[in-house]
């Protein structure tokens, strides 16, 4: 039997039984809709989170003392490493490293005209901080020789105190832990930065000063860098560079704990989790599809029972088992294809409507549509196997005798 003839037979049987065909395909349609909508939600989630992380510095390696809370190294206690200029030089001399900026930070109180606010003060080495230098809005940049100068973020300048702060104004910063207090001059105000990352705090609330100033405030014998930001020449080689930085530091801090951290690997972790969530959502949709598949088995069994006599006639006039199997498999497969196409169309429509209604993240991807369609066809085809075999195996004598 030729495929085209089998197709004609199937289409004739669909046409003569429109209502039953529609009802049996409904389960599959709903299942495919569920898959497409769920996957679109997942994709939207992925895209939304991706956007939140966009502009994040993927070419930065952060080195900080102490073990990170993850990984096997954190499980054994080691003394945290204390970073100084030797480490900065060592990293600077590593292949693949572009810039190295050592930083330290501490929580401080700022006093300005009887108002007191808590801030976090970040000490930097101005000559190694192109980023901060480049974003000065008013005033001047910090210089390595400054001992009582600060550069402040736009939110601190405009919103922290009743009066807006301007370059040239003085305020005092106090370390609450030891009551050491110093006066500082605002030398520059940073331009307003767009909030780029979901975490890391408000980038317009930063106060920068020099390491010497922070050291004065801390008034302690020892002073070390609490983090070293390393940018790399090439983002693609960041893993290799990170390993080399690690090796260079290991030579200086044999039994001490420090962490070399890449935003990139963390993002990759998040991306993996999101992909899992997406397919888990798709899986929920697939459950609906399986229920639809059971419905198809039911309807196909009913069809076989209804057509027992017809199958007998088909066999009597020369149809082989394979012919009958082909007809019934095509019937369920075609039902799956048509239902799948309808489901994919409606599913995509629903996703478009939901995403246009509000903030709910939805992204319709060709892959989601393809997955919906493939699973729809697959489910109905599998569902058709048993009924088709049953039809093919019918004894023609018995079948012809049926009423």
């Amino acid at each position, binding site marked *: *039997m*030729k495929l085209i*003839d089998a197709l004609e*037979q199937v289409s*004739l*049987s669909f046409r*003569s*039984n429109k209502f039953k065909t529609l009802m049996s395909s409904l389960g599959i349609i709903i299942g495919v809709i569920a898959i497409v909508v769920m996957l679109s939600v997942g994709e939207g989630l992925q895209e939304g989170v991706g956007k939140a992380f966009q502009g994040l510095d993927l070419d930065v390696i952060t080195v900080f003392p102490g073990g990170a809370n993850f990984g096997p190294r954190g499980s054994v206690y080691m003394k945290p490493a204390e970073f100084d200029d030797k480490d900065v030089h060592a990293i600077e001399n590593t292949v693949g490293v572009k810039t190295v900026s050592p930083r330290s930070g501490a929580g401080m109180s700022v006093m300005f005209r009887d108002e007191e606010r808590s801030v976090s003060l970040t000490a930097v080495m101005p000559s190694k901080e192109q980023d901060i230098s480049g974003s000065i809005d008013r005033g001047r940049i910090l210089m390595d020789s400054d001992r009582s100068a600060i550069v402040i973020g736009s939110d601190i300048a405009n919103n922290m105190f009743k009066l807006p702060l301007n370059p040239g104004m003085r305020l005092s910063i106090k370390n609450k832990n030891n009551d050491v207090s110093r006066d500082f001059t605002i030398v520059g105000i940073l331009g307003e930065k767009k909030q780029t990352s979901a975490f890391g705090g408000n980038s317009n609330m930063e106060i920068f000063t020099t390491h010497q100033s922070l050291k004065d405030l801390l008034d302690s014998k020892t002073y070390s860098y609490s983090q070293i930001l390393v940018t790399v020449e090439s983002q693609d080689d960041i893993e290799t560079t990170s390993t080399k930085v690690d090796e260079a530091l290991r030579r200086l801090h044999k039994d001490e704990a420090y962490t070399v951290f890449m935003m990139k690997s963390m993002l990759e972790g998040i991306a993996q989790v999101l992909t899992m969530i997406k397919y888990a959502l798709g899986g929920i949709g697939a459950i609906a599809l399986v229920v639809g598949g059971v419905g198809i088995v039911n309807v196909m069994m009913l069809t076989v029972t209804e057509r027992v*006599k*017809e199958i*007998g*006639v*088909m*066999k*009597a*006039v*020369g*149809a*082989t*088992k*394979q*012919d009958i199997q082909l007809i019934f498999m095509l019937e369920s497969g075609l039902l799956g294809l048509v239902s799948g196409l309808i489901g994919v169309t409606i599913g995509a429509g629903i996703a478009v409507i939901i995403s246009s209604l509000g903030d709910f993240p939805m992204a319709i991807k060709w892959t989601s549509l393809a997955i919906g369609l493939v699973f729809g066809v697959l489910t109905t085809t599998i569902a058709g196997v048993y009924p088709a075999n049953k039809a093919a195996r019918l004894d*023609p*004598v018995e079948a*012809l005798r049926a009423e």
Partner: protein
Amino acid sequence: MRGVLKIENVSKSYHLGKLEVPVLHDINLEVQEGEFTAVMGPSGSGKSTLMNLIGCLDRPTCGKIILGDRDTSLLSDIELARIRGKKLGFIFQTFNLISRLTAQKNVEMPMIYQDIPRQQRIKRARELLDMLGLGDRADHRPGELSGGQRQRVAIARALVNDPEILLADEPTGNLDSKTGREIMEIFNKLHSEGRTILMVTHDQGLAQNCGRIIRLKDGRIEDGKNS
């Protein structure tokens, strides 16, 4: 004349649970090309079983059925299906047309399984419907046809692959006597054209019409002589 059917020592029994129920005993029969044979006998005598065996719808418990020059007991299911489609034509008491297909499509059906090209199928089915006086009924479904018309569609379907043997199981059983006579006329005409026909019937009058009568009783042939 050429032998088209030879049945040698065929027995058939069914299993009802552990009980073996014999239906046909040691049947021997030869049918020559062009013969018009009636198979008669009371119900339960094994007529239908014999027709099913000849029609390759069922296999004998023992013995040989030779169609043309092929021993059907040696053939696979697929080969049996091919023989049903090409060498045999079935005509049933209850017509057994497919109700959702038009007369034309019903007649075309056996040709589909023989991979006959579409245009040829349409032409051949049309010719036969015309020949049987149903040219204007080709696009009607069985539900829109009278009993006699339906049986003529069924005859067209049986003839469509030009079979070597026509197997008719009480073809007039569901028809009134006038229509029945019309159908018998068609069989007579086919016989005169050289068709080999094997027909099960209860009707003595119809059987007399045939060249030969085989009487079955309790699964045995009573007499196979030409009458």
